[in-house]
């Protein structure tokens, strides 16, 4: 009889396990991150964590994605008035010693085919040279860019590029 009672107690546990295994997001669970990503014209993809030799310059390849239909100026735009894409890390336990940017793709606005622009679209990679001290550090980098589509431009923006740097 006692055993039978214990078996009944297992029912809610089984039920909970079944619900959990469904990997469900219930209607009351929000997904704030995806809303933020939807609004951003550039998102940082990866890496979230890197392991480097402490005290020695190391290379990190950072992947970004420009939203479809938009372009941002490359690091070396063809006009001095245009705002270049620049990656930075404020001084701290992780130092940015330098950054290599991809070459921009040549791009023209349909309404003005004579003006050539140098832009990034889709996914692009910035290679950063970093120098980290021993230990775990949260590098709070930033990417400054200015995005447009074929008809309009958005104001310049700076997005956070957060990376967990493990110096060993």
């Amino acid at each position, binding site marked *: 009889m006692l055993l039978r009672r214990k078996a009944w107690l297992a029912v809610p546990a089984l039920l909970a396990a079944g619900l959990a295994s469904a990997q469900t997001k219930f209607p009351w669970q929000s997904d704030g991150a995806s809303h933020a990503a939807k609004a951003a014209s550039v998102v940082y993809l990866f890496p979230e964590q890197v392991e480097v030799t402490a005290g020695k310059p190391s290379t990190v390849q950072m992947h970004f994605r420009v939203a479809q239909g938009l372009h941002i100026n490359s690091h070396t735009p063809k006009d001095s*008035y245009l705002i270049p894409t620049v990656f930075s890390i404020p001084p701290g336990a992780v130092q940015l010693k330098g950054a290599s940017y991809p070459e921009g793709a040549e791009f023209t606005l349909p309404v003005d085919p004579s003006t050539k622009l140098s832009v990034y679209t889709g996914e692009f990679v910035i290679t950063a040279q970093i120098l980290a001290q021993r230990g775990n550090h949260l590098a709070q980098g930033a990417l400054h860019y200015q995005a*447009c*589509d074929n008809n309009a*431009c958005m104001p310049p923006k700076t997005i956070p590029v957060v990376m967990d740097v493990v110096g060993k």
Partner: protein
Amino acid sequence: MKRNTVVLFVVLFLLAAFGWAGWANWESRKQAAARAAAMNAPADLVMPGSEGDLPPTIAPLINKPAPNFTLEDVHGKKVSLDAYKGKAVLINFWATWCGPCKIETPWLVDLRNQYAAKGFEILAVSEDDLDPGDKQKLKEETQQISSFAQQMHMDYPVLLGGDALSQPYGGLDSLPTSFFVDRSGKVVAAQVGLTSKDEIEGNIRKALGGQS
């Protein structure tokens, strides 16, 4: 009999619970797919076309008095929108870093030359960032905007510090953005993004009160 009823109840309860879990999972996947589709859809900063297609932050300004402002021009002179009552005014928000603005500027210069005698003026409000706390930097930034305006033959008032007008003028999330103000000071049309010289001219005529 009583035991069978309890077992039946439990089985039904379990079936209902798993059915609900399945539905919630399906609903969640459907929402995730919709979000992914929205993220992959071509981004469109501009909603061209009629006033009905204007961004929801800008559409309410139509047929309302244009929010007044006083800004300094590139020569340090204060310019107020109120001073232009009796004239049709195009308030053009632009920036030196905005490619589409650079494309439409020669159209604006031509149209201003064409319609100035009829009582039309353009106020070009720069959205370029300024550093008011750093005098030397501010001077350089002002000089850069002024040089750009000269290169583009913008012989109309070029005003600085457009950021201050973001809120009253609907956010100014994308450039160029233009508001067409009639002689009484009422916004009669607005455009967001690059349109066409013809469309701009049509709105200038509207602001002038149907004159051609």
